[in-house]
């Protein structure tokens, strides 16, 4: 265990729980605590949307259309009289869900590609050329192309963005595998007769966890921005579902009379992405100080 701790600062002998880890991270960088608290608020807001939302997010109420922020509607109403606060709360559900699923998809695919590339020089040449090629497209543009082919839906947004962000995970996993695979304990495992698959799964994969967690946090943030951009352009989640990008897009038409429609969902995006980035910076400093600004 003492040996393992040398290579992986994340795995300490005491094994503190998630709360303990967070506390130690916050002690190192206090702003990380702000990020964690903000993201907790957004997640709770999304989960409790049915309880917290004062109105139905989709029911039309035309007499109350385009009302400015007031007691009854703290964020105002849109062109159909729908409450912007309620729509923003429900929008958080989709935005967070897309962010989480994109990250899960990109992490799964990226880990598989990264493990293959890191452990086999032949696979490395082919796979990493493909990853380089995929990274040659601006994120949003490649996602737009994929959405054009697949058709607009929440599921396809997850597939497109998951595909777009896979190379980022693959790169950091490959780099970690190339370092870990030379270490003595891998040689030791091989010497006692562990199979290649077992070594990859039990000894190498766990030591790639830190960079995946750090990149994954940033990818969640990118994915939330990406989903908002796609839905804003009208090629993402269909407009019937309240999404932050979709609400901002609808508000664009009423920018002169009712700027609050676009204002509040935008603030929600900024807060969520800022919180995830702060958390990601904190995780990076804590889990691997050598990876700064990579």
């Amino acid at each position, binding site marked *: 265990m003492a040996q393992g701790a040398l290579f992986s600062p994340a795995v300490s002998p005491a094994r503190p729980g998630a709360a303990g880890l967070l506390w130690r991270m916050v002690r190192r960088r206090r702003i990380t605590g702000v990020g964690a608290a903000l993201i907790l608020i957004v997640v709770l807001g999304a989960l409790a949307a049915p309880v917290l939302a004062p109105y139905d997010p989709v029911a039309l109420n035309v007499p109350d259309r385009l009302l400015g922020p007031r007691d009854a509607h703290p964020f105002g109403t849109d062109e159909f009289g729908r409450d912007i606060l309620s729509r923003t709360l429900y929008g958080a559900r989709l935005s967070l869900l897309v962010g989480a699923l994109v990250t899960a998809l990109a992490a799964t695919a990226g880990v598989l590609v990264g493990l293959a590339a890191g452990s086999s020089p032949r696979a490395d040449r082919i796979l990493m*050329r*493909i990853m*380089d*090629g*995929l990274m*040659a*497209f*601006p*994120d*949003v*543009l*490649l996602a*737009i*192309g*994929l*959405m*054009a*082919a*697949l*058709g607009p839906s929440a599921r396809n947004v997850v597939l497109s963005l998951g595909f777009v962000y896979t190379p980022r995970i693959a790169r950091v996993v490959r780099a970690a595998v190339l370092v870990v695979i030379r270490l003595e304990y891998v040689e030791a495992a091989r010497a006692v007769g562990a199979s290649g698959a077992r070594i990859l799964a039990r000894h190498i994969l766990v030591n790639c966890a830190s960079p995946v967690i750090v990149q994954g946090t940033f990818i969640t*943030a990118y994915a939330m*921005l990406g989903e*908002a*951009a796609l839905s*804003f*352009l*009208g*090629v993402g989640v269909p407009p019937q579902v309240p999404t932050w*990008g979709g609400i*901002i897009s609808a*508000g*664009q038409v009423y*920018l*002169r009379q009712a*700027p609050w429609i*676009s*204002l509040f969902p*935008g603030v929600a*995006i*900024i*807060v969520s*992405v*800022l919180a995830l*980035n*702060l958390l990601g910076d904190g995780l990076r400093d804590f889990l691997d100080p050598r990876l*700064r*600004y990579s």
Partner: protein
Amino acid sequence: MLAYLTGRLLALLPVLLVVGAVVFLLIHLTPGDPARVLLGQDATPEQVQALRHDLGLDRPLIVQFGLWLARAVRGDLGLSIFQHVPVTDDILQHAGPTVMLSLLAITVALLIGIPAGVVSAVFRNSWLDQGSLALAMLGAAVPSFWLGLSLIVVFAVNLGWLPSSGYRSLSQGAGLSLHYLLLPALALGLPNSSLIIRFTRSSLLDVIGNDYIRTARAKGVNERAVIFHHAFRNALVPILTVVGLTFAALMGGAVVTETVFSLPGVGQLVVSSVLRRDYPVIQGVILMVGTIYVLINLGVDLLYFLVDPRVKY
């Protein structure tokens, strides 16, 4: 130098091949017959059959890819379904606003990013440093389309200083063109300055820690000359890399920004093409931007040579 250049260009080929393959395969992701998809819904069965034969859709996928690539290399990206004009012409017609917007936005990003990064590093841990880093954090979190709408509300709707949409080309006067492009360039440039701030800061801090900076200070060189003459020039190489990356990200962001400000650029072309399912145009734009991105990165690598005489090829 020549050997390096040849090697570098050869290394580009596999990347460009992947770029081409991704764009080629996009059309095969769509449900249904690619020939039907390419020609649109009003095509006659004869036209579809003719295109199927033309594209060799009855042949193996790899052969089809070869044929498609051979055409693309010669600049033949097919015909737009909607306009019935060659896709290459369609893209070139829309290139002006996108090029202007991208150049102005990268200028904005540099004008904010480099000074903020330098100030941040020189006055490390001061309130100026905290402020620059806060700006960088905020910039990374703001969607450029939302920032664009906010700028419209403040500067076009309330103050009435700048137009909220539209485009004037350079031939109509540089001042007028700038007047129309200023808000879009700010909306796109501000968020993209955040990486430049962080990289300028960290790169400069790395250099300032070196012995030759201490030597320069010790022999009495004034602080301004130390920072700009001794430190900044040596910090430039990593900064250039991130400027290249930012420029590429910016081309993607331009797609969204053009929509906000109704600029008739490539971004608007691709978005409207998605909505009318004009696949040849979508493929053409993505292929072109991917290729430009690869070339920009090559250009940045070659710039190292000019900036840093220690870099030998």
